[in-house]
């Protein structure tokens, strides 16, 4: 069971920190390398990690759950990133509640 609203929250926050629209990131299921090339705020994987970190920091503030993503290769599609993000969120949420 996925917490309602979390997926759209992650999509929205990540797009905001990448300086792109959600469509530019998620519609064609592009890879992280493509996200970097499209983003006006990203030059390399460090900028990408910073965008993930800011998304995770916002999640912690607004939903009270600390999420830390594993290192993901740049050929990872955004659908997989989103899936990993949500799985981590739900896992940490369970651990926090336990």
């Amino acid at each position: 069971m996925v917490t309602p609203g979390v997926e759209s929250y992650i999509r929205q926050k990540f797009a905001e920190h990448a300086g792109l629209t959600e469509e530019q990131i998620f519609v064609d299921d592009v890879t992280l390398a493509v996200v970097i090339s499209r983003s006006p705020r990203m030059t390399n994987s460090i900028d990408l990690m910073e965008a993930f970190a800011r998304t995770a920091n916002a999640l912690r503030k607004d939903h009270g759950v600390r999420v830390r993503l594993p290192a993901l290769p740049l050929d990872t599609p955004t659908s997989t990133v989103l899936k990993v993000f949500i799985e981590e969120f739900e896992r940490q949420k369970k651990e926090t509640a336990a």
Partner: protein
Amino acid sequence: MFFGESRLILPVRPNDLDALGHVNNAVALEYLETGRWDWLGLQGLEPGARMIAVVARTEIDYLAEIPRGRVEVRTVLESPTAEEFDEDGLTYRARFRQRVHLPETDRLAVDALVTVAFLDAEQRCLVPMQDFLAAAVRG
């Protein structure tokens, strides 16, 4: 965390000069690195062997010739700011505003924005600044 500006005076070495008799552009990058070490020292921190800081990007403007004499390297953490930095959060990128002044005239000679990332030298992967700070040796 120390969010103030560090100021370090360095002598210009004879071998810093090129054929034109001014400091070579690549040497200015060494001055900036020394300035960042000085800033870190003001934090009371000495990096450990495993978590290291690496330069990921340098934007630099050379504004005036640097002759023989002395330079002053001013370094301040521009991002994250004191308001942005969260010890319990995640930050993968630190940006330093660094300026090299000629102390005799207070003229600005170099203006740079240096982006630094943090690596786990064993795992060869990016780590947050918070992990770097936690692993650093407190002097």
